[in-house]
């Protein structure tokens, strides 16, 4: 096995998050009843012509910038001709000669080492209808026909399935953060085809490759590539030759299954789409799109680190787009961001997960969150207080102060009262006090606990801590 090198290339299709379809005014949506988001253009009726959705072009430019691509400033569309029931016009409008972006790359990090995955081109095209096959009939849903797609093609530059996985995760993160696509593999808004060939280490020339179509998840991409490589190596070891072919990955059986051989190269009869004139992308347009690109994960990681978040918190936040977006709106505020991230990733995240909602579905406003963070960081609210009020904070339209009042969370902040409390505990626990004075720091924690207990949890811990230490220091001095 180790005598062989793998050569992998990936093709990713992303459905773009535009309001309308790429070449018609129909709504671009997922989950509606079949054949309700359609018009004559989507159905390829006689005499209809495509219109051009500028929003889709802008999303394409944004993706090109993020993927470090060069941009074709004079681009056109091409027709890819073939017959299939899900292809209403008998051709797909795509980009062949002048993809919107080319010669780009994505950086992945593996074991502290940064690697570039090279992208040969990214191009815009229309999606096909969705077919569902039943026994001896096929059903077609044209809601998907004309949904804008961005196809992202890497060079055959990947030599390890794990790198393929890291690339896909990074790509997904970028496209999600830039609001280009939902990237939901389970809904088909992100689809992945992979191709792989293997060859002996001493051999320079690449062998015939096998394409694996429509792999269902990123983790399956690794499994499928590993398995397909294994199958190919076995064949070469048995002196069998490999024909160019398309296979699919069966994850239950963990093996790849032949779909078709590709000896006769598909003749798609590409030619420039005469119904769409050249599209000219000027620098002004590109620059204005560049300016509007939100903070992307790598930049966010750097900022989070600067603000004192640890790597685990950073990554947790970045893996949760809506929490991260919410968090990012406080980056310029004068609040304790570590406390903020702990609150978001702790109690708030578990509340959201339990109800399967996002932060946007709650009543948590920016102001309310700032008060919450401030009250926790100056210790006016204990973590138990937070647990007690969180549901109300997220579900009610009230301000934090109103909720605290309503819940009867009254911290003892009167220093005389606290002083008395501390004195009582000190005189009742002389042994612990002695321990502390002899240098056993653990005793302090015990004393704190006793004071909080005596106050039924209502004492303000920060103040108690301060008063306790003052009093103990005084004792030390007097000794």
């Amino acid at each position, binding site marked *: 096995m180790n005598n062989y090198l793998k050569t992998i290339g990936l093709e990713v299709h992303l459905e773009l998050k535009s309001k309308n379809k790429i070449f018609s005014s129909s709504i671009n949506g997922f989950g509606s009843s079949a054949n309700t988001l359609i018009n*004559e253009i989507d*159905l*390829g*009726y*006689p*005499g*209809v*012509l*495509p*219109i*051009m959705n500028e929003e889709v072009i802008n999303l394409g430019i944004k993706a090109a910038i993020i993927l470090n691509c060069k941009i074709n400033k004079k681009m056109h569309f091409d*027709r890819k*001709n073939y*017959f299939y*029931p899900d292809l*209403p*016009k*008998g*051709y797909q409008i795509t980009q062949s000669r002048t993809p919107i972006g080319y010669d780009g790359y994505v950086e992945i990090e593996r074991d502290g080492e940064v690697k570039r995955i090279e992208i040969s081109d990214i191009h815009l095209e229309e999606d096909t209808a969705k077919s569902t096959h039943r026994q001896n009939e*096929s059903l*077609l849903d044209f809601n998907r026909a004309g949904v804008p797609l961005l196809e992202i093609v890497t060079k055959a530059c990947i030599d390890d399935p794990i790198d393929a996985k890291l690339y896909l995760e990074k790509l997904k993160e970028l496209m999600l953060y830039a609001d280009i696509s939902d990237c939901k593999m389970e809904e088909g808004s992100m689809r992945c085809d992979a191709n792989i060939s293997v060859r002996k280490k001493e051999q320079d020339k690449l062998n015939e490759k096998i394409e694996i179509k429509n792999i269902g998840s990123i983790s399956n991409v690794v499994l499928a590539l590993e398995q397909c490589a294994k199958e190919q190596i076995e064949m070469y070891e048995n002196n069998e030759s490999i024909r160019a072919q398309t296979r699919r990955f069966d994850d239950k059986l963990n093996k790849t299954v032949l779909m078709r051989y590709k000896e006769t190269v598909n*003749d798609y*009869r*590409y*030619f*420039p789409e*005469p*119904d*769409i*004139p050249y599209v000219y992308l000027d620098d002004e347009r590109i620059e204005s799109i560049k300016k509007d690109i939100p903070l992307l994960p790598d930049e966010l990681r750097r900022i989070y680190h600067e603000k004192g978040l640890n790597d685990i918190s950073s990554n947790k936040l970045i893996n949760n787009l809506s929490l991260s977006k919410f968090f990012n709106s406080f980056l310029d505020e004068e609040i304790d961001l570590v406390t903020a991230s702990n609150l978001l990733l702790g109690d708030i995240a578990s509340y959201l997960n339990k109800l399967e909602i996002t932060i946007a579905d709650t009543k948590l406003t920016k102001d309310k969150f700032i008060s919450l963070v401030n009250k926790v960081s100056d210790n006016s609210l204990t973590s138990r207080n937070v647990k007690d009020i969180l549901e109300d904070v997220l579900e009610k339209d009230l301000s934090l102060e109103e909720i605290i009042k309503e819940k009867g969370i009254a911290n003892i902040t009167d220093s005389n009262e606290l002083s008395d409390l501390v004195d009582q505990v000190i005189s009742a626990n002389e042994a612990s006090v002695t321990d502390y004075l002899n240098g056993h720091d653990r005793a302090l924690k015990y004393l704190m606990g006793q004071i909080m207990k005596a106050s039924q949890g209502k004492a303000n811990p920060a103040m108690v801590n301060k008063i306790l230490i003052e009093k103990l220091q005084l004792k030390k001095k007097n000794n």
Partner: protein
Amino acid sequence: MSKYLDLNIKEINELLKKKEIKVSDLVKEAIERIENSDLNAFITLCKEEALKKAEELDDKEVDNLLFGIPIAIKDNIVTKNIKTTAGSLMLNNFNPTYNADVVELINEKNMVIIGKTNMDEFAMGSSNQTSYFGPVKNPWNKTKVPGGSSGGNAACISSRLVPFALGSDTGGSIRQPSAFCGTVGLKPTYGRVSRYGLIAFASSLDQIGPMTRNVYENALLLNAICKKSKNDLTSSDTNEDFTRLIGEDIKGMKIGIPKFYISDVIDKDILDKFKEIVSLLEEKGATIDYVDIDYIDKCVPLYQIIALGEASSNLARFDGIRYGYAAKDIDNIDDLYYKTRSQGFGEEVKRRIMVGSYLLSGENVDVYYNNALRIRNAMRNSFLDKFNSYDLLIGPTTTTVAYDLNSDLDDPNKSFMDDVLTIPVNMAGLPAMSLPIGFSNDLPIGMQIIGKPEDEALIYKLGSFIEKELSLDLDPRGDKDE
């Protein structure tokens, strides 16, 4: 039988305005004429719809010159709720749910669609003999072809069934039948008229245009159908009165004649008549020169490559799945495609799809299509260059007059060679008009006036001048119907 439809548009308009006649009178007369005609000019006659529309209009104020006028629409222009066949069995059952942009525009003018006219199948042909609905006869001699592909239009305008028609021109499909039938037909600048709703033949060449009895009425109809459309990315911004130069003197006009247009492939009678016009123009103060256009002699093969390549793709949508003809007794999806397209398309259409598919296959797309686009561009530039020195170019529209029905049916190149003088105009995206200039053996001869892009108004100026000077009797009915 009334004869309001023999009057010119201004006379009809006066009668309507004075309420001496009603729209219903015009529509009834048109229907009667069509029903009594044996030219096979119509595929669908919209009798009930037209009469209903006419009755609605009878109570309305006459607000423009085209108000209430019957119009025929070539059957490759989509009309809502009116069967639209493109002359093919493939669409014999197709009832569109939408209107072409031009149909919306003529509806805005309150014109009355009287019916859908016969045509070569999917506009592929130049004699109207490839129609699934049978050939159209030439009103001047019923043993002759009317030309094509807008043959039904030319025949019905010529024989005065209706005064206005909308056709389409990919390589000469408006101008060549206009020449054969003695009518006026204009192919506008590519992009002038929205193609939305025109069933595509060759997208980079197709253009809808007006077909009429005379030059003024042609300009009037062009006024009505020119408007930038949000539905067609190739449509251009346009707002002008195309009749505005009609009646002006032509003294000092500089006119070029491409040498290709006086070569010996053209019938002597046609050349002689054309030379008479040239003399007339010189006599009236125009200057005439002979010019060379690069690659113009290669226009037929260039056209075949571009038009058939595009057609093979445009006609792929007719697969029997969503609309149109679907073969019965099929085993699987490939069988559905194979049988539907074998049975639904006629021979000429299938031949063109096959040739076009071949031309786009594999390496061929570079060898043929992409090279043809480059040469076409060079030809266009050569044309544009001439317009630096000349106001207009002129030449005959066709190499022959109308020929016998059923002649040369075995020669697949015949229909392309018929268009050898009209194709260069489509290749260069220019506007051009054919108008009658005389007769050869009682069959009309047409000449072509070619303008620079967007210069239709100047074409109309010269056309109307010639028309007035010649004052030909262009009614094929002669004294027969008197």
